């Protein structure tokens, strides 16, 4: 993302931000994998029935986030069994402060000056989590990025950002580190989970919708910022906020652009989650085809499962699996966007100083390599045996997904504090980003329904009825 980088944000003079994010991300991942392996269960280590979410990791006790609450805030700090999780929530914030401190050391900044602001940012991230976990908000899928951005924007515009806090605003660093850790969850083996029908639905429709929407945004709607077109296209066609974060970082989108794309995605996710199941019922679609349609079109994973389950267990399973396949495409798409941006888009706007490959490499966001390394290594480990798959699942569901959630949340607070919507006001007022999202989503709905009907409903459907 453009704007304040490691060196330009006020005196980071050590390693480059991308390098620091990669080192810290991979080190945390290695630590988590090692500790989970050491504590691996002796009984049935390869049984999915015994360990449905993977091996328990000892690090799970060191991190959590507020649970859903309605009338009383007390419920936010207790798990479903009624045990207090206040300490893991505090420690979760502590992990972010530790990452910020390690980043300051590797980046050559003063840890002492960085820490007070980092603690305040983590407290604001905790507040965002608390707002997002209110029951109505939670079950209608208004995710934490929205509230983290809102808190940041409100504070930034109502009281301003004091100088001591400004020194700690390393939103891009938090997001890049979170993305490297996130690589462990992007498993290529998952792409094959639904066989040829799943591959066709994801691999044919998603890239077509992504490319066509981007092209329409740039050439038909003439939106001045290509990176805005890319983040809107990616979050709409792939998988919402997580895809927007990954591609936004790969094409160095502005904070304001990422905020706008995430806002659009969250609003339409809620609308589609509520409207699509009755529509599918009304049309009378087969639950498999309906589930595949939901999985391929609704942006956010949780909303896909919620909509699918309201159609029935079968539709819910297909919807969740199609979405998981799309989720697994993030790595490839982020890499492709980074290559395209550094090789073509930046080259066409900046001065030409060498060969295409040399220039592309110079501009390539290096943390994407850390993200891909984590993804490839964990994909390889995942494929070795059922026990290894449970090792990866346990590490990611029990620890790394929670840590990258805290890092993203803190990153969004920073972005909110630095967001200047005046820059985007003319584009927003023109209505073109909204038009791009709606037009792209219409194309997505039509193509996904056609492909899901063709593959899940006809070509690869067995005739099981007598």
């Amino acid at each position, binding site marked *: 993302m453009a704007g304040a980088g490691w060196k330009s944000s006020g005196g980071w003079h050590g390693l480059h931000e991308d390098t620091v994010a990669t080192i810290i991300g991979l080190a945390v991942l290695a630590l988590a994998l090692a500790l989970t392996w050491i504590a691996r269960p002796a009984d049935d280590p390869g049984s999915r029935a015994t360990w449905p979410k993977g091996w328990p990791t000892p690090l799970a006790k060191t991190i959590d986030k507020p649970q859903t609450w309605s009338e009383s805030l007390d419920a936010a700090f207790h798990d479903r069994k009624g045990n207090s999780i206040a300490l893991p929530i505090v420690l979760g914030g502590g992990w972010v402060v530790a990452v910020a401190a390690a980043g300051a050391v590797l980046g050559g900044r003063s840890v002492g000056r960085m820490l007070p602001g980092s603690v305040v940012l983590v407290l604001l991230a905790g507040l965002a989590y608390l*707002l997002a976990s209110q029951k109505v908000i*939670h079950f209608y899928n208004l995710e934490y990025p929205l509230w983290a951005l809102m808190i940041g924007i409100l504070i930034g515009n109502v009281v301003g950002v004091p100088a001591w806090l400004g020194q700690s605003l390393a939103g891009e660093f938090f997001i890049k580190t979170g993305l490297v850790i996130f690589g462990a969850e992007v498993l290529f083996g998952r792409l094959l989970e639904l066989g040829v029908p799943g591959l066709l639905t994801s691999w044919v429709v998603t890239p077509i919708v992504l490319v066509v929407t981007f092209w329409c945004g740039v050439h038909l709607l003439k939106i001045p910022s290509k990176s805005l077109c890319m983040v809107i296209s990616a979050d709409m066609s792939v998988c919402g906020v997580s895809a927007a974060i990954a591609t936004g970082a790969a094409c160095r989108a502005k904070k304001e652009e990422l905020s706008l794309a995430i806002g659009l995605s969250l609003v339409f996710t809620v609308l589609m989650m509520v409207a699509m199941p009755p529509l599918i019922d009304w049309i009378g679609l087969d639950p498999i085809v309906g589930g595949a349609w939901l999985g391929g079109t609704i942006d956010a*994973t949780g909303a896909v*499962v*919620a909509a699918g389950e309201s159609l029935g267990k079968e539709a819910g*399973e297909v919807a969740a699996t199609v979405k998981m396949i799309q989720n697994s495409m993030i790595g490839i798409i982020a890499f492709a966007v980074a290559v395209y941006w550094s090789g073509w888009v930046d080259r066409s706007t900046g001065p030409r100083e060498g060969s295409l490959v040399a220039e592309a490499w110079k501009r390539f966001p290096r943390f994407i390599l850390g993200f891909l390394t984590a993804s490839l290594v964990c994909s390889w480990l995942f494929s070795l045996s059922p026990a290894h798959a449970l090792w990866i699942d346990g590490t990611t569901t029990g620890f790394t997904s929670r840590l990258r959630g805290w890092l993203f949340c803190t990153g969004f607070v920073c972005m909110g504090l630095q967001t200047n919507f005046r820059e985007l006001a003319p584009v927003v007022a023109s209505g073109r980003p909204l038009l791009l999202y709606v037009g792209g989503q219409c194309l997505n709905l039509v193509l996904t329904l056609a492909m899901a009907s063709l593959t899940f409903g006809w070509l690869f459907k*067995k005739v099981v009825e007598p």
Partner: protein
Amino acid sequence: MRVSPPVRLGLVMTAIGIVWGIVLPRLGRFPVIVRHVAAMESREVNPAAMYYTELDRLPVRSAWIEDRLILWP
């Protein structure tokens, strides 16, 4: 009238407190919302999951999908 930043912050925090402390809990008692929340809770669905690893149950291919589809012709 110019309002000082601390007062503005106080007003914003009060507004957040009213919405999250009073409005949303009351909204959560509407029958349509109660039904939606109860359905999601009974099926252990986490609609706020950003990625599949945040779901309460990881998606696993079921036998019935294999029965209904030719996955690898």
